[in-house]
Structures are given as structure tokens and as C-alpha cells.
């Protein structure tokens, strides 16, 4: 298995509190992604990173921020959690060859419940 770890694996938090999810990789991959998965919506891209301190927004970025200060860590922060952010969050890593993406490796997911 690719060396990618998400923490925590489960979290229950209250509405209005900030929450940070961590993705840690040992593969030295340049590209890292945060997705959320909800029934009926599949995987939706929140933010992604294409290098240290280089990030961009995905399809559903409102209410989320990210940071990548080291190659191995990509943090996702819910600035003020809302019930609509209850979801399963997945981190993924990948590389590019000749400018074209290669296969992505996924973490095991973080189940976040906002009450």
C-alpha cells in the first residue's frame, strides 16, 4: 500500500468549531488532493496542491482552506464547521509524467460528523 495516512479517522465536532484534518504521505509525491464523498454526489474535489505552498480550489472549496508547508503534509481546515460539512473526507496523492497525471493513491478516509 502507498504510504498515505489520514488523521483522525473519525471525528465528531460541534457546529461553529474549527476542524483540521491531516494527510501525511511518505511517497514524496508532488500532487495532493482533498475530496469529500457524499451519497448521490460521488467524490467532489475540495482543494488540491501541486507543490509546497502551491494550492488551488476545487469544485466545493467554500468553507474550507488548506495548507502545505512540507511535501509530506497537506492539511484541510474547516474554518467554522457546519452540518453540511458532515461527510467522509479522502486524501489522495499522485504524480505527473510528461505533464500528464498518473494513478492516484488514496488514504482510508476521515469520517467527520458535525452536530
Amino acid at each position: 500500500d502507498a504510504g498515505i495516512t489520514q488523521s483522525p479517522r473519525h471525528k465528531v465536532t460541534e457546529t461553529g468549531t474549527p476542524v483540521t484534518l491531516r494527510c501525511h504521505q511518505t511517497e514524496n509525491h508532488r500532487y495532493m488532493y482533498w475530496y469529500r464523498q457524499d451519497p448521490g454526489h460521488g467524490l467532489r474535489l475540495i482543494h488540491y496542491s501541486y507543490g509546497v505552498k502551491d494550492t488551488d480550489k476545487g469544485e466545493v472549496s467554500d468553507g474550507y482552506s488548506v495548507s502545505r508547508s512540507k511535501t509530506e503534509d497537506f492539511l484541510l481546515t474547516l474554518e467554522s464547521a457546519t452540518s453540511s460539512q458532515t461527510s467522509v473526507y479522502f486524501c489522495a496523492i499522485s504524480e505527473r509524467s510528461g505533464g500528464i497525471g498518473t494513478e492516484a493513491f488514496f488514504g482510508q478516509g476521515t469520517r467527520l460528523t458535525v452536530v
Partner: protein
Amino acid sequence: SQQGEEDPQALSIQEGENATMNCSYKTSINNLQWYRQNSGRGLVHLILIRSNEREKHSGRLRVTLDTSKKSSSLLITASRAADTASYFCATDAPNSGYALNFGKGTSLLVTP
């Protein structure tokens, strides 16, 4: 927006039968990938097909790509109960930065 759209949303077959899932996408792509997700787990990469390829095989998997129709299909031959999972297509597009966009998935149930 989500680039890929799988069809059907759900598929139920018996062991030994073939399963076919389709994926349609909206814009030009560099490549298209298929992933499997077992319940409660992360996604696992199955196969990648580049935009200049038309067909690719990996074990019991066969993927086709028709860029003129902006569509791909995943065929699983001689299905097994262990193939029960959700299957997603994902596209790497030249005009989407470095994003990898997924569809909503097809839920496959293989009964003994």
C-alpha cells in the same frame, strides 16, 4: 464541475456474468482512469487509459475509450462476489490544472 458521469448508477448481476459500466465526460482529456471502492474503504486504482489509446486490458478488466463520443466503458468478465464494490471513472484534463475529477460512480453487486 464533475467531469465524468457513470452509467448505470447501480448494477446487479450473478457470479460468472460480465459487468459493463460506462463513463461519459465533457471536455478533452489527457487520460481516463477507473477506480474501485469497497464499502467503507478508500479508492483503489484499477486501470489508466491515455487519450491516444482505444482499448486496454488488465486481467479480467477491459477498458475502452472513444474520444469522439467522450465516453469510456469498463468491462469486468466472469464476475466474482469479491467484485462487489463501487466503480468510479476519473479524468485528467489539460484545461483543469492538475485536478483529477471523479464521477458519481456505479454500484456493482455480484451475487453468488
